[in-house]
């Protein structure tokens, strides 16, 4: 009954829709929220949405993980491995950036007691 979901168009469409929604949720958070940590979370959500698009659209239903293991000795029917590698790399980078940001935000809070992005006025001349 739900086979139609396996057709690549629908499958990709659903994922695309979902990740775009995720992306816009992130964008909304980024633009509307004032708290620094919330902004970092929003950025992360946007990044994740992009990863999701990459992974989802590069993979079609029925493809297996691109790992040679028991029983799987040829490359046929496997998903494209490159997006997965890319995503892994990108996640690492994203984590690094978020970690840096979070630590900076904490230090900033300790020094000034501020957490809102709109309150950052140290650089006003």
């Amino acid at each position, binding site marked *: 009954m739900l086979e139609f979901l396996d057709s690549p168009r629908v499958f990709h469409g659903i994922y695309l829709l979902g990740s775009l929604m995720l992306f816009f949720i992130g964008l909304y958070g980024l633009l509307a929220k004032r708290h620094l940590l919330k902004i970092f979370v929003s*950025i992360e959500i946007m990044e994740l949405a992009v990863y999701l*698009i*990459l992974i989802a659209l590069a993979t079609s239903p029925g493809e297996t993980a691109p790992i040679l293991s028991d029983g799987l000795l040829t490359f046929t029917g496997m998903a494209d491995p490159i997006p997965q590698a890319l995503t892994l790399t990108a996640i690492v980078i994203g984590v690094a950036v978020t970690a840096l940001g979070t630590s900076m935000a904490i230090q900033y809070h300790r020094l000034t007691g501020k957490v809102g992005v709109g309150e950052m006025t140290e650089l006003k001349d």
Partner: protein
Amino acid sequence: MTLHFTPVWFIAVPLLLAFLSPLWVRLRLLMPILLGAHVALFALALSWIPTVRVAPLLETIVIAPPLGIHLHLDAVSLLLVALFNVAGAVVSAFLWLSHAEPHLRGRPAFILILLLIAGSSGMVLTGDIFNLYVFLEIVGVSAYALTALRRDKQALEAGLKYLIVGSVAAIFILFAIVLLYLQTGQLNLAALARDFGHIPAPMQALIGLLMLIGLAIKAELFPFNFWVPDIYRGADPEITALFSGVLVKAFLFVLFHLVFLLLADPAVARTWLMALGATTMLVAEAVALRQQDLRRMLAYSSLGQVGLITLALGFASEATTAGALFHMVNHTLIKLLLFLLTALMLRRFLSVRLADLQGLGRAMPLAAGLFVLGALAVLGLPPLSGFASKLWILKGFAEAQVFWPIALILLAALLEAGYYFRWIKVFYAPEPPVTAGQAEGDWAYTPLLLIAGLLLLLGVAPFLLEDWFVQAAKALLGRGAFLESVLGVQP
């Protein structure tokens, strides 16, 4: 045993040094090593000039392109890599020789500067778009950290702002890369260039816009450059020198490298890019008129020059491109000079606001003199090198019988003169200055004098580097040659 030099060294050596740095116990050695590394890499770059003149050098990593990752060393990337290493060398020499604050001489600074230079070199050298993203993020992370290095309120705020806006830019770029990959299944730049034309037009526009905006944020183009003044104001001037001298140039290169590669006919984007450049230039120069803080003023001036370079590169004729590359080199040198001077002034006066720098010419005659020199160079007044590069750009426009950019460039230069000379006048005000900080030793001026000498030399004898710039312009514009060298076929 023969040492095998490869372009990988430009990335590997700084990375290696950065990661090995915890092994050094003696902090005093850090800055000399930093200087040494950059000087060595600069020498290495110079040694490649003859090779690159003949053909671009492809350094394959593991698998041959288009499947594998490779570094593409041609005249233009060599030029930029050499420039980055010069900038790194100058800044590290300055940090070593002057009384820089401890946080700028410590291990974090050492690591981050190396990462910044390595990342920038990587962006310029890589022939793979995902690698580009990785290097971009390396540069980004190190830049955010460098901005906040001082760890006081202002530095942290600048760092946070930079991080937020930089991450968003990175997401835009990543999005564009993802779309590119999904559309073409390629990550190699040459292969992408070959296949980009087959993508449906609306998708092309979307990818192009995402990429353009992402890179424009990074490369400080109007209206995506609102973050710049705050960051330049908050970070240490020594670090800002690197941002203005290295980072922006790397991003500008990437932007135009992609434009020239992906678009078979750069004329499509010409008007857009030129308009972007022209507005950047005029807006920045106008806003700079009102600035009261030297760092902000220099930030806007930097934006103005970036706009000029964009305008010239966007026109994509050989003469304007060569001139723009020359101007990139000049601007890097000039902004290094000016920002490092700002650092000296900041240490002496504890503030670089206009009102506090009255009569600086008496307290720091050499610094004031060098500032004048830098200002003259950035305005493009002979006999300094800014003149030669600007003339080259203008000549390129005149050859093509296109006059509106000439008018705008000259108008912008006049506005620029309006504020630079205001500062100079204040520096030479007859009132005696109030000095609060400490005086600087003469050694700190060595790298600055070196730059000044270079500016003069390149202004009087620009033919020394003429050939290189022409080759670089050809390499940057030569889409066909690029594709052929990587894919082995005529597109």
